[in-house]
Every structure is written in structure tokens, then in C-alpha cells.
């Protein structure tokens, strides 16, 4: 599903964000990427959804080499990947429903189908009474769940999340993790970048540890 071969990434010639990364995440897997701030977690995730192109090496998603992808093919790839951003990236002047609907509008769904599907996922997230609220009127945990709903509403093949539990309390962390697990159980490959040890320890999943842009260790299912 996700493969990286000798991937290196530099933002500037003298500073390297990732060095010689070799990685395989099979279909339906659930892995954590961990490491200190600046270890390269976010850069690695951005390579997966083609927000960045590696300076060296190859990134393959379902056998498709992203380094050879034309500009017009990138949107098609991204439609099969749900992304939860560290800063949520919710549009403040649109309602919760409209924020989640964006993913389906891009796919060309009809208004009625969008309404049904979005309401269904918001219900799963426990946000059915916040449909018409704007993000600024929601708590951090609720905003994170809206971002998750937007990422999962089209049943993506891959879900990547960058520090999804960063600013949340334990209760909300638990809620978010159970949504990840549920998505994984439905067949979605999940890659979560986090430096939260408790989240990793409680999840019993494979962990890839990064340090200064290199893979330090890959540990099997924890727990």
C-alpha cells in the first residue's frame, strides 16, 4: 500500500528533513510515527499525500510512483487519502456541515447525497447537534472530530493524521483513537504521527520511531 524506497527530503540544500527512509505499510495496517519535534514525522506524512516531492528516492501508493505523477493526477490521488491536519484546517466562515461536505463536493456528489452522508458521519462522531455551528464556536475536541469527519466522509483507502491528539484531554484523545480504530476496522490504512507516548501505549499498534530524519526503529504491535 504505502512504500518508500531510499527517500530523502531537503527543504534547503544544507538541512535535511528525511534521510534514506525505507518503509512499507501494508494495506489495512495501523501504524504510529513517533519521534521528537523536528524528527521528520510531518514531512513523511506530506510525502504520502503528495504535498511534497522527495529530493531523492521513490514513494509508492498502491504501486503508483508519486514522483512520476503529473500535476493533474495529484488531485485524483488525494481523493483516496483522508488527511487530518495538526491545525485542523477548518474554514471558519463555513458551518460544520459545509466543512465536511467539501470532500464530497470535490468528488461531484449530489446535494442530497452529500447531506445524508455528512449527517451520517457527524452522527458517528457525536456531532449531530453541531451541524449548523461554525468551527469557532466548537471546543478543540469537537473541531478535531469535524476534521476527522471531513477526512473519513468519503471512506478513504488511507487516513493520515498529524498530531491528532495534541491539544486534547484524555477523554477526547480516547474518542479520537476509537474513531481511528473504527476506520481501520472498516479497511482503511491508518498512519498517525504523534509524540504522545500514552496514546501509543494504549493502542497496541506498530510504531515507527524517527530521529533527526532517519528511522531509528520499527517495533511490532505494542502491548
Amino acid at each position, binding site marked *: 500500500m504505502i512504500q518508500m524506497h531510499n527517500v530523502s527530503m531537503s527543504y534547503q540544500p544544507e538541512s535535511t528533513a528525511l534521510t534514506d527512509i525505507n518503509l512499507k505499510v501494508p494495506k489495512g495496517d495501523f501504524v504510529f510515527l513517533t519521534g521528537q519535534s523536528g524528527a521528520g514525522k510531518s514531512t513523511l506524512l506530506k510525502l504520502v499525500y503528495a504535498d511534497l516531492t522527495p529530493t531523492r528516492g521513490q514513494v509508492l501508493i498502491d504501486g503508483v510512483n508519486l514522483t512520476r505523477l503529473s500535476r493533474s493526477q*495529484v488531485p485524483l490521488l488525494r481523493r483516496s487519502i483522508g*488527511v487530518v491536519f495538526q491545525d485542523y484546517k477548518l474554514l471558519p*466562515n463555513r458551518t460544520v456541515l459545509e466543512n465536511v461536505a467539501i470532500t*464530497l463536493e*470535490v468528488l*461531484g456528489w449530489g446535494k442530497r*447525497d452529500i447531506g445524508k452522508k455528512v449527517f451520517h458521519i457527524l452522527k458517528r462522531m457525536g456531532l449531530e447537534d453541531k451541524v449548523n455551528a461554525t468551527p469557532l464556536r466548537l471546543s478543540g475536541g469537537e473541531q478535531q472530530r469535524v476534521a476527522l469527519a471531513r477526512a473519513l466522509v468519503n*471512506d478513504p483507502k488511507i487516513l493520515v493524521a498529524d498530531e491528532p491528539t495534541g491539544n486534547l484531554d484524555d477523554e477526547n484523545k480516547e474518542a479520537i483513537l476509537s474513531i481511528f480504530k473504527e476506520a481501520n476496522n472498516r479497511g482503511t490504512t491508518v498512519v498517525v504521527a504523534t509524540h504522545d507516548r500514552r496514546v501509543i501505549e494504549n493502542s497496541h499498534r506498530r510504531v515507527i520511531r524517527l530521529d533527526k530524519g532517519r528511522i531509528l526503529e520499527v517495533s511490532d504491535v505494542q502491548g
Partner: protein
Amino acid sequence: MSKANKGAVRPKLAQEGFFGRLSYFSSRALANLKQNVFVSAVTVGTIALALLIASLFLLVYVNLEGMAQGWSDKVQVTAYFDKEPAPLAVAALKGRVAALAGTAKVLFVSQAEAEKRLRSRLKGQESLLEGITPDVLPASLEISLDRDHRDNESVAGYVRKLKQIQGITEVQYGEEWVKRFNSFMNLFRLMGALLGSFLTLTVLFIVSNTIKLTIYARKDELELLGLVGATRFFIKAPFLIEGILQGAAGAVISLLALLGCYFAFLKNAGDFLGINPASAGLSFLPATHLAGVVLGGVLLGFIGSATSLKRFVNV
């Protein structure tokens, strides 16, 4: 893995086809305008103000041009005969002159008519005309030229041809006046073109920068759309429609403001300034120019949005 996940499958192709997509993008554009009322109002206001200045300039230019064209009606050529031609010959001569390229109107002035005109001009001083008979004043043809033949070279060429007609002994036209008038018109047009160009550049600069700022304010939205898999066209289309709508709204508002200014201050300004006493004040812009201003607004909105989007859409 419990279920095979098929990824992004859609149940219905609701927005496919030209009209389906256009309807989706238009409704998205309208929703964006509603959600960003203040920013949209600033853009529309800037376009309206910029176009109002441009159309005020256009109004003044069009009126001055019309006035100057009115003056050029005075470009008249008079051909004198040594002897008054017989009535039958007059018709033939008028026909030959009318056949020359550039002739707009030909009027025969007989010796008697010339004397009558002189007498009416010297009303109250008739004693000066004592002993003068109509034979003293020559018969003539007064010729008005059409607008395309009023420049120096055309008038000179016309006069040369006129002199070749038998019976015409002398031709007079305000050579010096024609030269000065044409120099003035050339200068006037040059100034108009220069000022118009500067004004157009200023308007383009102000409007494109305003649109750039408003699009910059929504760069997160553009980025997000790209990250959830929207194509460049999908991201840009609603913004371009917004640009067109803002441009059209700005143009209509500027024309309404111009109409207001026209009726409040400009309609009788011509009389007030005494520029052209014959005219009944300044005239409003003709329909073609009004359509041009609206089209200009639409193009401003479209081009301003398109160039700004190019910078912020990285998909």
C-alpha cells in the same frame, strides 16, 4: 481487515455536464460572496470607484471630442467664378463638384445672393454700399466637406481637384484655421490617449491588488481544497465567477453613480462653462460606451481573479 475498502466511490454524478457544473460553481460563488460580505463589498467598492473615475474621464472626453467635431463643420471651401454661370451650367457644375470625393454639401451663391448677404451684414451702414452693383461680387459655390476629408492634406488635395474644374478661378478656405484646428485635434487625441492609458493602468493596478488581497485572505480555503483532491479548475471556477460578478456589480454601481453625478452637476456644465453655447449641455455616454464600461468591469474582475489565483493555487 474486515471489509475491502473501495475508497472514493460516488453514488451520483450530480454535477456532470456543462450546465450542472456551471450551476454548482455559480451557487458556490454566490455562497462565497455571502460568507465573505465585507471582503466582497471592499472589492466591489474599489472596482466601482475606479470605473467611476474612468467613466467620468470617458464622459468628458466624448463630449470634448463631439464639441471639436462640431467645430470642424466650419471647414468650408468656397470656389469663385469670374462670370456667373447660366442656370443650366450651375446644375452641371454642382454635379461635378458633388462627384468629387469628400464633398458633403454644395450650395450655389449667385451674385445677387452675395450682394443680399453683404447688405444684411452691413445693416445700418447701407451708405457704404452706395454705387455697388451685384456685378462687383462674384458668384460662388460653398462646399462643406465630410468628416474624413477635413485634415490639412485632404483639404489641399480637394482644392487642387476643384481648381481643375472649368469656370472656377479662385478657391478659398481657411488654410491657417484648418491647420491650427487639426493640430489642436491631434494634441487633444494624444492627451486623451495618454491620460486614458495612465488611468487604465492605475485602475488595473488598484483593482488587481485589491482582488489579490481578498484572495490572499482566503488562501487557507484554496490550500484546503487542493489537499482534499480538488482539481485546479474546480478550485478556480467559483473564484473566477465571483470576480466576474464583482466586476459587473462594480461597473453597474459606477454607472449609476455617474448617472447621479451627471444629473446633479454635469448635465448643464457645458452651458455654465460656456464651452459650446450651441449645445444643450453635456450629453451622457452613448449605449456602446456604457456596454464597454460593464464589459471592462467584468474583464477587470475576471483577469484580476485569474492572475491572483495563479499565485495562490499550487495544485
